């Protein structure tokens, strides 16, 4: 857990957030956060003194065994849950004090069933500022076009007018990814966004997401079970232990961008995947908090 200190600050991309402190402060600082669900008999400790810094513009992949608290971390950062202990800072201030634009794709698609796919994707534009101001004027023009352009990118161009129940699980998931991206968020929280997709669609969407990140430089926290995915997309891979989750490995990934499928055949890419695989395997077996032997990286 010393890696955080060693990391050099990544320069803030233009237009992300204005305050000068964003240059020195990480966008998100999670400090010794614990979270317990339920009470008494049914108490489950999901996180135990977890710490993680995410600099502005970074792309972090969060991997770990099922049930270790990955979704919980995303929900804390999105302010859907408050930690039982510990602190979360956004641009150096207590979470909630600073308003940043968040785009979140949940583990389930969670599309609103009474809205068409297009209206679902446009929802963030209707709710969050500054888009909300022009909602009435632009909802049938610019915003609509923007939603439809995104849908086309993920292969859903003919389905804008459909309702969620008319789409397959993987199609719904892609629509929910569009909803997370449509308002060009500063912080993207993606919870297994490609989980329900086949290998080929998934790899296509990796490139969509990579292109988008290179263009807009949002800060990304991506939860995934697919190690190739994490190594392909992220600047940093963070491995969590079994529940209660804490961070046991924090690994930089420095392949040049744009990465392509060719990258995944490189020997060092394959080697990285093997190493991560065995780390997670050990984390599963060893249980909470144990730092596997090979984690000195």
């Amino acid at each position, binding site marked *: 857990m010393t890696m955080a200190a060693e990391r050099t600050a990544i320069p803030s991309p233009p237009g992300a957030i204005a305050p000068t402190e964003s240059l020195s402060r990480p966008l998100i600082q999670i400090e010794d956060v614990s979270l317990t669900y339920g009470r008494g008999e049914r108490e489950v400790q999901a996180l135990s003194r977890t710490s993680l810094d995410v600099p502005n513009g970074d792309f972090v992949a969060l991997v770990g065994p099922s049930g270790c608290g990955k979704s919980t971390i995303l929900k804390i950062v999105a302010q859907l849950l408050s930690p039982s202990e510990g602190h979360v800072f956004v641009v150096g201030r207590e979470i909630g004090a600073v308003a940043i634009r*968040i785009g979140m794709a949940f583990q389930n698609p969670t599309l609103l069933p009474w809205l068409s796919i297009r209206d679902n994707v446009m929802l963030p534009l209707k*709710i969050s500022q500054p888009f909300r101001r022009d909602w009435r004027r632009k909802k049938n023009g610019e915003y609509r076009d923007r939603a439809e352009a995104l849908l086309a990118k993920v292969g859903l161009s003919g389905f804008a007018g459909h309702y969620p129940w008319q789409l397959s699980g993987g199609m719904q998931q892609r629509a929910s990814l569009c909803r997370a991206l449509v308002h060009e968020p500063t912080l993207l*929280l993606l919870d297994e966004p490609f989980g329900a997709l086949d290998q080929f669609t998934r790899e296509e969407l990796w490139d969509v997401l990579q292109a988008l990140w290179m263009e807009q430089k949002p800060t990304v926290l991506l939860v995934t079970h697919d190690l190739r995915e994490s190594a392909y997309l992220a600047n940093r891979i963070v491995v969590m232990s079994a529940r209660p989750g804490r961070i046991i490995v924090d690994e930089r990934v420095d392949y040049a961008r744009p990465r392509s499928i060719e990258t995944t055949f490189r020997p060092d890419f394959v080697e990285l995947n093997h190493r991560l695989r065995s780390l997670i395997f050990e984390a599963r077996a060893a249980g909470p908090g144990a730092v596997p032997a090979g984690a000195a990286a």
Partner: protein
Amino acid sequence: MKNTERFASTALIVGFFLVWELACIAFGISEIVLPRPSQILMTLIERWPALVPHTVQTLYTTLVGFALGVGIGVVIGMIIGSSRVAYNVAFPLLVGLSSIPKVAVVPIFVLWFGAGTVPAVLTAVVISIFPVVVNVATGLATTEPELEDVLRTLRASRTDILFNVGLPRAMPYFFASLKVAVTLAFVGSVIAETVAGNRGIGNMMLIASANFNVPLTFAGLFILAAMGIGLYLIFAAIEKRVTGWANRKAELAMG
């Protein structure tokens, strides 16, 4: 409904009246006991000019009472459904109140407001409030927290969440309750008219039966049936248009 099914139900209705007609003839049933459908129809046509004001009166009290009842019901339902706690606290009282036979309040209304239109409207109000309150509150209180989370990550206010998730989500429940409420409002106003009215179909039927004008009494019944079915169909059609998305999955609670 498939075409054959639609044909079958039409045939069943026609058959019902045919059997009624033929049975009356075959067993020589007097029109003082059970008039034949054809006699009722004749009476309806003959007395139509006199029946129209009563029909209008009943329809008027029903719709006014229904509209007020729905308005009040939506507001109370929104308050109760606004939080899980309010819902859990208020629900037992709600169930208790809604299981009182609402017609029992008619004498009280007569006591307070005298005979006439007012008790009929009020009875319709009271009777149509409950299904609406129960359904709106249930629809709001059972909203999936995941759907609210979607809005919360966008820093939506409570009002935003209510208008973009809560209310649309409660719509199928609301419209299901409208169908029930409009039929009940009808029952309410007719009973009030019967007990303490000076106009309306209920009152007209009471007078006709006192005069042993049985065909006219039945004619009143036919008018009530026609209005009841008509109102139900109108609201069922609106429901289908507005909440088509829910027909695939949601099971609706009934008030």
